[in-house]
């Protein structure tokens, strides 16, 4: 079932952030939301994830669906290792070796057992991406997942994302048209 948002309104202290927003996110497809800063893209994702309530409007097709996400600011547990951060959201029984392999496929060999606080911004971003895709979910929500990555790494991570989606619905915010095109497989 597709996910639909209909006539969503949201404002903070009188400041309108979302005004009569309606969209459809087809099941099993990748949808990129693009636009200038301050248009309420992150707010929209937060509403979809259930972290904020819309002032009015409807969200259809999210009931009973399990979400995973790349948050705007990584939201990693800084004192835990990359592997532990990912295992935290996985079902019991997922092997550490499997996670190590996934980290390696986004260029994070050799840092699997380092506390995340010791990693660079780009590395943390990739850990957050791997975490979102390693978790069992129906819908993957990503807020600028390739922020801070160089072109070569970004291409590698996009290839990884496309491979790991496995038919899940992806809703992604980006400012970058090239990223959107690459995600579309162009």
């Amino acid at each position: 079932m597709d996910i639909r948002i209909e006539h969503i309104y949201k404002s903070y202290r009188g400041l309108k952030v979302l005004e009569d927003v309606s969209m459809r996110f087809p099941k099993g497809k990748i949808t990129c939301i693009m636009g200038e800063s301050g248009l309420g893209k992150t707010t929209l994702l937060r509403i979809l994830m259930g972290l904020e309530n819309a002032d009015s409007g409807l969200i259809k097709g999210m009931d009973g669906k399990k979400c995973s996400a790349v948050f705007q600011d990584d939201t990693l547990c800084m004192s835990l290792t990359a592997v532990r951060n990912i295992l935290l959201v996985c079902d019991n029984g997922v092997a550490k070796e499997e996670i190590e392999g996934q980290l390696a496929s986004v260029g994070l060999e050799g840092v699997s057992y380092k506390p995340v606080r010791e990693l660079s911004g780009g590395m943390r971003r990739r850990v957050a991406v791997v975490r979102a895709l390693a978790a069992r979910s129906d819908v993957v929500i990503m807020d600028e997942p390739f922020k801070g990555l160089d072109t070569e790494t970004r291409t590698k991570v996009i290839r990884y994302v496309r491979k790991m989606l496995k038919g899940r619905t992806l809703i992604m915010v980006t400012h970058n048209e090239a990223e959107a095109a690459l995600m579309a497989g162009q």
Partner: protein
Amino acid sequence: MRTFITNGKKKTGIKLWSVLFWLAVWQLASMIIGQKILLASPVSAVAKLLDLCRELDFWRTIGFSLGRIGLGFFLALIIGVGLAVLSSMVTLIRDLLRPLLAAVKAVPVASFIILCLVWIPSRNLSVFISFLTVLPIIYTNTLEGILNMDKGLAELCKVFQISRGKRIIYIYTSQVLPFLRSACSISLGICWKAGIAAEVIGAPKGAIGEKLYYTKIYLDMPALFAWTLVIVIISILFEKIIISGIEYFIYRMEHQ
């Protein structure tokens, strides 16, 4: 997000030469005064300590005090953490405990000791007094750690539907442990001082406090300094062991 990272350790430790300097000053002062009853020399204190080490009663005395003060500390650690968790979940409990713990912090230890002597046998007084001095520190720091927890991590738990068990073991614990480590570091020294003070006033048979009490009665200054040295050494060792334990736990958690 709160993190506990330091860019290289600042050298704030005690230097050996400065210790030797002050020992020399002490030795010189005792030689100038020339009366053991007023100021025993470090040499005589160490000699007395070596004499004491050869007696079985010395080790029993240490065991007696260490066991009781240690028990008070661990009880405060467990109950303090438990109360902090409860307070973080129920505001009513937090409000209820606030004046009680403020009073415990404000009332002088000596008043508590004398008051408690009426109710508690002097043998177990040090358990209660060390418990009472440690509890507010553990409670306050742990609660601060919980309340300062990164809000983003709460959102992470909600979105990924992370189980309660995993939240407690990995997220809450990793966020609170640095606060708990700091609380233990502060409270261990205070705990020992308060526990020994309780023993000196209560003078239970077979405790370090009792030995200190008798040094006053018999004006045995070398013994006073020897026992004081014992208290300092045990206090340092106790603190090192507990803090190393917590740091090992943090290390294991951070590298698994």
